């Protein structure tokens, strides 16, 4: 019964690196000098990066004008939904002390508007926006159909809450002449959104493409009449609509609205001087203690005017240096104690 070594093959395990746990490896062994110099190097890098980022952020300009309070009367009017068809405009003058050079971008910024609520985010139909099936409103509750059962296009809470203030920037050339600053509404979306993710249903004209659907309840006009000036900027392909549909992650957010068309007086950018925003006020925010503002900003390679990243790098760099110095001090002080004589005896 017992098998002898001769009559069965050897069961000696294979001599491979994996099986014998002998894989070639580099062992991380950081010497004190290694760690300390690593710390110093990291510190230098972070400090340098921080300074560069801060300088770059400083080089960009940004002005923000909160018009929630300035247009209080309009806000009051909008709190009552029955006044939806009453026009309300307000003008906000401001002074630009320095020329904003380069490309200038205009944003609207909302405070306390929750585009990131779970229910809100779910309430959209990507397949409808793709134009394949304009009546696919399944996922859009509670804004999928109107009272009479007609599917809404574009359906859902996101689309329904589209930001619909119109903001026009005018430049006071001299005391009497105001000219409207030329703004472009194209090129404010992601290319992928404009050309892949959003598409109008195919048909000879837009209004027939959307036949059998109705406008979202808060909209004054149907989707194919969003831009009366540019027929190509209508339907699901409206730039403002696309921007709005890319929801923001935080309750305070700004979205790109227009960009400066650098012609005539504005080839250099926005010259210093007096300006005013003419807002046709449609979007209600005061009900939920929200606020609205409009932002003009130039950009650099590292983004906008925000100092956060630069400061974070600087602080990190400083802390690293501090840590490195104290570690070095501790190391030098305690190094002698590590090899105590009795240890050597044990060896």
């Amino acid at each position, binding site marked *: *019964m017992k098998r002898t*070594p001769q009559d069965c093959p050897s*069961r*000696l*395990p294979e001599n491979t690196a*994996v099986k*014998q*746990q002998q*894989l070639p*490896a*580099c*062992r*991380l*062994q*950081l010497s*004190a000098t290694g*760690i300390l110099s690593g710390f110093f190097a990291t510190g230098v890098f*972070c400090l340098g*990066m921080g300074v560069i980022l801060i300088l770059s952020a400083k080089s960009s300009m940004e002005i923000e004008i909160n018009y929630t309070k300035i247009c209080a009367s309009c806000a009051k009017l909008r709190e009552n*939904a029955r006044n939806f068809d009453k026009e309300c405009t307000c003008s906000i003058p401001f002074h630009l002390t320095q020329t904003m050079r380069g490309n200038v971008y205009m944003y609207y910024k909302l405070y306390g508007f*929750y585009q*990131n*609520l*779970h*229910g*809100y985010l779910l309430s959209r139909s*990507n*397949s409808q*926006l793709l134009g394949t099936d304009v009546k696919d409103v399944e*996922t859009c509750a*509670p804004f999928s159909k109107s009272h009479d059962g007609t599917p809404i296009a574009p359906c859902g*809470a996101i689309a*329904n*809450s589209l930001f619909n203030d119109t903001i026009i920037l005018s430049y006071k050339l001299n005391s009497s002449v105001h000219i409207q600053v030329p703004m472009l509404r194209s090129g404010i979306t*992601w*290319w*992928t*959104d404009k050309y*892949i*993710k959003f598409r109008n249903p195919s048909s000879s004209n837009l209004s027939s493409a959307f036949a059998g659907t109705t406008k979202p309840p808060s909209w004054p006009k149907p989707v194919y009449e969003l831009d009366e000036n540019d027929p190509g900027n209508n339907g699901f392909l409206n730039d403002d609509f696309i921007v709005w549909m890319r929801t923001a*992650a*935080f*309750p305070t957010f700004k979205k790109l609205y227009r960009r400066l068309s650098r012609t005539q007086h504005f080839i250099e950018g926005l010259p210093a001087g007096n300006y005013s925003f003419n807002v046709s006020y449609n979007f209600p925010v005061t*009900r*939920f203690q929200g606020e609205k503002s409009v932002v003009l900003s130039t950009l650099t390679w*590292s*983004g906008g005017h925000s100092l956060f*990243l630069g400061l*974070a790098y600087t602080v*990190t760099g400083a802390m*690293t240096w501090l*840590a490195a110095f104290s*570690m070095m001090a*501790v*190391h030098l002080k*305690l190094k002698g104690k*590590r*090899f105590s004589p009795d*240890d050597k005896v044990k*060896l």
Partner: protein
Amino acid sequence: MSLFESQSENRQSGEPERCLQANNREFNTLFGYPNNTIKTSKYNVLNFLPLNLFEQFQRLANAYFLILLFLQLIPQISSLAWYTTVIPLMVVLSITAVKDAIDDLKRHQNDNQVNNRSVLVLTNGRMKEDKWMNIQVGDIVKVENNQSVTADMLLLSSSEPYSLTYIETAELDGETNLKVKQAISVTSDMENNLKLLSAFDGEVRCESPNNKLDKFAGILTYKGKNYILDHDKLLLRGCVIRNTDWCYGLVIYTGPDTKLMQNCGKSTFKRTHIDHLMNVLVLWIFLFLGSMCFILAVGHGIWENKKGYYFQNFLPWKEYVSSSVVSAILMFWSYFIILNTVVPISLYVSVEIIRLGNSYYINWDRKMFYAPKNTPAQARTTTLNEELGQVKYVFSDKTGTLTQNIMIFKKCSINGTLYGDVYDKNGQRVEVSEKTEKVDFSYNKLADPKFSFYDKTLVEAVKRGDGRVHLFFLSLSLCHTVMSEEKVEGELVYQAQSPDEGALVTAARNFGFAFRSRTSETITVVEMGETKVYQLLAILDFDNVRKRMSVIVRTPEDRVMLFCKGADTIVCQLLHPSCRSLGDVTMEHLDDFAIEGLRTLMVAYRELDNAFFQAWSKKHSEVCLSLEDRENKISNVSEEIEKDLMLLGATAIEDKLQDGVLETIITLNKAKIKMWTLTGDKQETAVNIAYACNIFEDEMDEIFIVEGKDDETIWQELRSARAKMKPESLLESDPVNSYLTMKPKMPFKIPEEVPNGNYGLVINGYSLAYALEGNLELELLRTACMCKAVICCRMTPLQKAQVVELVKRYKKVVTLAIGDGANDVSMIKAAHIGIGISGQEGMQAMLNSDYAFCQFHYLRRLLLVHGRWSYNRMCKFLSYFFYKNFVFTLVHFWYAFFSGFSAQTVYDTWFITFYNLVYTSLPVLGLSLFDQDVNETWSLRFPELYEPGQHNLYFNKKEFIALETTYWTMISHFFIWGSLGFYFCVLFFLYSDGLCLMFPNVFQFLGVARNILKLPQLWLSLVLSVVLCMLPVIGYQFLKPLFWPVSVDKVIDRIHHCMRHPLPPPIRTKVKHASSRRSAYAFSHKQGFGALITSGKTMKGKPKKSSLLKK
């Protein structure tokens, strides 16, 4: 019925007693006994899925995810897509299921193989071959030599005289020596007469199936008469028939009812400390999860009240939400779903994979492969690996574990001359090694080729015809109770009750005095090629008091001779005064033997006057028949004749230690592992071996011996030992005492107490029985645990387990038991880790063990290398695992404060689905399979590195250590960078145009990757995050050893130092033996075997054979 007293206790099924009739299947089927099929497998094709799933869902984490799945199906609270839980759950379940299926398949194959073995059954008056599984209760079965017994059966008859049957019970209890069973005479008369056998219609009533191997009670009713049956007449399944051509048996218990199967009951599932900790942690995590959900739900309520209510223009409340409170309650469950990632679903699976991997390393280790047996180490359980890195107490068997249980005739002293040392040409003594030339025994045809001896002078003396030397070997070949078997002419196989005796008889055989065969009256010896028959007149057997045995024989020359061998202390008192000077010389030699740690025996003889012997013999036989105080009388009578002995010499036998035992024990000592030896052997031998393998050291301050025979004495002994080791531990004010007086509730833990020196403790089984009683066990434990080494001798298997349990119960540390015999099974099962040495004795220990290998010294590697790595890896793994889950989940907690507590996730659902399963599992797995903080050479050279595990320092409720791969192999690189790369691939795939356009409502993130990854801000933030995560950890690692140095850091420091300046390899510790101990005679066998020989019952010599020899 007193016969069936024990029935009620061991009866589980309704069967009160078993009733059966031979050769009557119809009658026996009435009772519905099972047939002889055994089934160890768990599943079949049909029930696999439901049963396996049911078992898997009994696990907390799996069940939790099932509940989660149901929650997700409720649309009101579903905050994540259903597939986020289904996919991981499916993967986890199927991995486990596949593993279970493979395991069960193996069991099926084993069962099939066993069930289909064939056996001869008596049917219709003829022997017919049938499969094992078809055997039924009441069948008569024929078993032939070297076959295994099919089922538990009543022995009816056999080929041997008196229907004796020799069996080997290695598979049952691990003992390899032969045992004798004997049929009752009424059935043995049937022999192999098939007519009689088929006509046999005896009825058996016996106890119902139970698991007691050494108990059986029943009654055979045959031809109107009752015969009592006991376990001496029962052949158990699993035994092997030896030295018996054939035997017939009546099947009594079959299949699952057999004692073998009843004994192999479900082995208790061993859990590791980490397992336990993991469960506790998971429970805490549940609580944590609950509280997080609660906080968020409250937050949501407040938010809905303050903001959400006014936001209804844009997002009206659902129709079923009547108030913010309702919304908050729903939100609790939504968050319960979202935060599920904090509960580590893949934890159990990953832990299993890691353990499996680390077990395979053990199986694969070439350094734990034992070439002579062609056996690699084997991890039989894959769940205990990390525990190997935490062992604090090792309980070791002695025989076969520390020693090889091979006795070697090493030296002897004959008539004042010492033989056995080897000298070179210059007269220098040389150590015996592989190269030393062996003595050539070719002149002796009967010599055992395996026997080796190196001193030529002894052979020369034999050849020369030295009378004393001849007499010496003659006495060795006559004075014993060994049995011989000669299957092939000239090839003798000895069956010895103790290996010592075997060694002596074999030595005599090789030097030309071959014991060939015996009957109850004669012993046949081939003396220098000449066959002589000695008449055996008496055997005065060994017992523990006499410590000697003698035989009285009549030589062919008609002289009456007494040969005696025994412990030197005893025999030298019985010597004739004329031997005094020889005695002194021999005693000196014995001292030399003792220094070398050899087991010694003195050999003497006496020529008896015929008349004197006759008179004595008469007295002896009278005494033998007396009923009162027989033992004492026999011993007195024996003493009358065992005196005035003429000294022949002394023998020295080496109880060979296993290779590397010494080094291993020294290393384990350094690793602060306490070594307890639990042995069934007697005190002298145990202590002797303990010194030989450095469990006890000569430098020890004191060795306490506890051998009291009542509570009071033992208590005294234990207390006085403690008084020496740590006097203050007896004071009331001692923290342990004051703790114990508070009568803490079980389970409590007795803290470690430090004595003032190095002490050892010896306690024997008899005293231990008292000491294990309730009120003394704590005394025992405290005293014993203060000692550096403890030896318990004369232990029963149960006591071994009790000792292990004791330490386990009060010390709360990891215990390891290592042994090779069936008597170690109980302790192997009791300890946290059981290790079986697959060596000399049977397979029982191995089969019950968690790890099995061939040599004791592999233990060092198992613990210090594999155990330590496993523990470190597991700790790192768990820390990292919990860390990554927490990080992942806490982001959602944070985000809730910005998203109106609306259960919105930060990540997209696919990322959540894959995070644990795909993106992060491999790097962690890689870490936990390949990481080595220090390599094996260092961990063996610095056993101190083992200590942190014993105190469970690396993973406990307080500590979370960050990911630190210290050992970057190719695979680590591959896993980490691969996972990262894979993440980006999956990202681009999931966000690709095609997929999004196909399923626009499932894959919504078209273009995100492309547009975001272009932004420099993203990369800058990424770099900053990495810096912020890494630096504090590195700084902590740097400062920790400086501020709070633990011994391990020092060791690691030294290792780094050594790596830069390589040291010469450590000097091998020289094997040294202590000076002053004399090892005593050690017969390890039971007394009373001699009586069996003279009674003639066990004599298997056939008349014709012996007569042949006489000629």
